[in-house]
């Protein structure tokens, strides 16, 4: 029990690291995912092919492999992912600015991997809009842009929000993998620091693990409950 009080700093640091990585990856994945979704619904077959290839690749290989490839390819290309050392951001998110690139590599891997799922969530949202809505808009003489802005996207957003939420929850859980790539500033890193690496570890591994699990549940369960509530309220309004 005393581990929670003695080592609260370690737990807190790990929790913060996980949250920071998740916020970064969520923003990145939403941006890249939207871009890929645009490619995937583009009218030109070759452009569509690029989007489809991206999604097929990243949806079907394990995140572990993505992380390995990141850890191999980026250093080989002479990149320490230094482009993520964005001035103001490194003071806010300290692991981002460290000499060791692992936090940045893991964040990049998590981002490009999650982006594929974000793309699919957005696309399922667009596809869930009844075709008649867009046809009516076109027959009113709306341009492509007007159609998107006033008719399709507001509805697609509503259909996409729940799948997007599940993607983000999955992403939070996936961030646990970062530890295998040397990121100690994560919730799973707490276990590593207090048990595996500690000399003559005096803490009960069970207690530490329970703390780690709680750290993730604090993030995932409330998000899941919010999502359930959103889904329920949508079902009520969508029912015709």
């Amino acid at each position, binding site marked *: 029990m005393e581990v929670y009080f003695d080592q609260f700093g370690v737990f807190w640091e790990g929790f913060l690291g996980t949250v920071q990585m998740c916020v970064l990856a969520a923003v990145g994945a939403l941006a890249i995912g939207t871009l890929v979704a645009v490619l995937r619904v583009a009218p030109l077959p070759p452009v569509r092919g690029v989007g489809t290839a991206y999604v097929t690749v990243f949806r079907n290989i394990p995140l572990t492999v993505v992380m390995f490839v990141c850890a191999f390819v980026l250093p080989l290309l002479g990149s320490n992912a230094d482009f993520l050392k964005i001035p103001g951001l490194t003071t806010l998110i300290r692991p981002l600015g460290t000499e060791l690139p692992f936090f940045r590599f893991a964040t990049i891997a998590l981002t490009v991997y999650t982006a594929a799922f974000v793309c699919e969530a957005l696309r399922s949202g667009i596809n869930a809009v009844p075709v008649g*809505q867009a046809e009516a808009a076109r027959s009113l003489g709306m341009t492509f842009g007007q159609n998107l802005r006033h008719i399709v996207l507001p509805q697609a957003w509503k259909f996409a929000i729940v799948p997007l939420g599940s993607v983000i929850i999955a992403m939070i859980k996936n961030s*646990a993998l970062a530890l295998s790539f040397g990121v100690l500033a994560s919730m799973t890193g707490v276990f590593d620091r207090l048990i595996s690496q500690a000399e003559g570890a005096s803490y009960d591994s069970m207690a530490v693990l329970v703390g780690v699990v709680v750290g993730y549940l604090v993030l995932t369960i409330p998000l899941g409950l919010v999502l359930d509530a959103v889904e329920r309220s949508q079902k009520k309004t969508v029912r015709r």
Partner: protein
Amino acid sequence: MSSVLYDTPGPRTRAKTIVASIVAAPLIALLAYLVIVQPLADRGQFDWKLWAPIFDTSDPNFPLVWDRWRDGWLRTLKAAVLSMVFSFVLGSLLGLVRRELRELRRRRFPDQPRPARTGLISSVLAGVGLSRGWVEVARGTPVYVTIVVVYTFLPRWGVDFDDRLWYLVIALTIYNSVVIAEIIRSGMENLPSGQREASLAIGLGSWQTSVLVLYPQALRIMLPALISQLVVVLKDTSLGGLTVSYEEALRTTQQMVEAFRGLNIANGIPMFVTLGVMYVAVNYVVSRLAHYLQGRMGSGRHRRKSDEPPVQMVEAGAGAAGA
């Protein structure tokens, strides 16, 4: 075909599309070359020496590499199939029990004497709470952590496996059985209410209604989602290599890369890229199967109402490590 975004193209639009495609395709190829191929080529990654052990049948390492990959993939598939079978059985059971508990919660047991009544009602409530708690905890914990928990706790409780496979299978089963239970439960709850009402009207109890009437139909409708879950499980087996040193496809690849480094062949990229291609191939086949089944189910008796959004695939795990 007309879609949400575009009208059915006429002859002029079609011609424009073809021309634009012919222009765009080489541009994309050029971009891919500049961004991906050239930087790698500059660093000698296309040196045949690095790829020979994988693709050159006359290379002395060729048979060794593919032998190890075959073993690794067999272990990956074994872990995935075992986890999926256990998850399916336990998940079905959990889904049925949760549904039954929900039915029982409405009952007030008027035929029982008063103390038994309060006992029954409170034990039902306890069951509801416990199962709900189990679902939330098992679902909200990263699979990576679940594997570490299983690996740390089971030996301490005197359950020791020689084969590390079982730690992985147990952890994957804990996570996926809960996910499958929720898939099946939502399948049963989204059936037309007439199914349940008719079944109760002919005198079946609520458990019989669930097992004989609702469950088989839910299974049919949810089959594609269940198969997609297999992709998640397949991807999650790769966590077994990292956490419990189970020698599945990823870990074997990792070990081979280490071994080749000893031979002064730095073929990390070729090996992992080939591994990635194999993962894509295997999972692509599985998801095609799901897609095919979804098409078949759609034309069956239980056609989805067309204005309902399609079945959401549960994408979690490392996919999920959940993704």
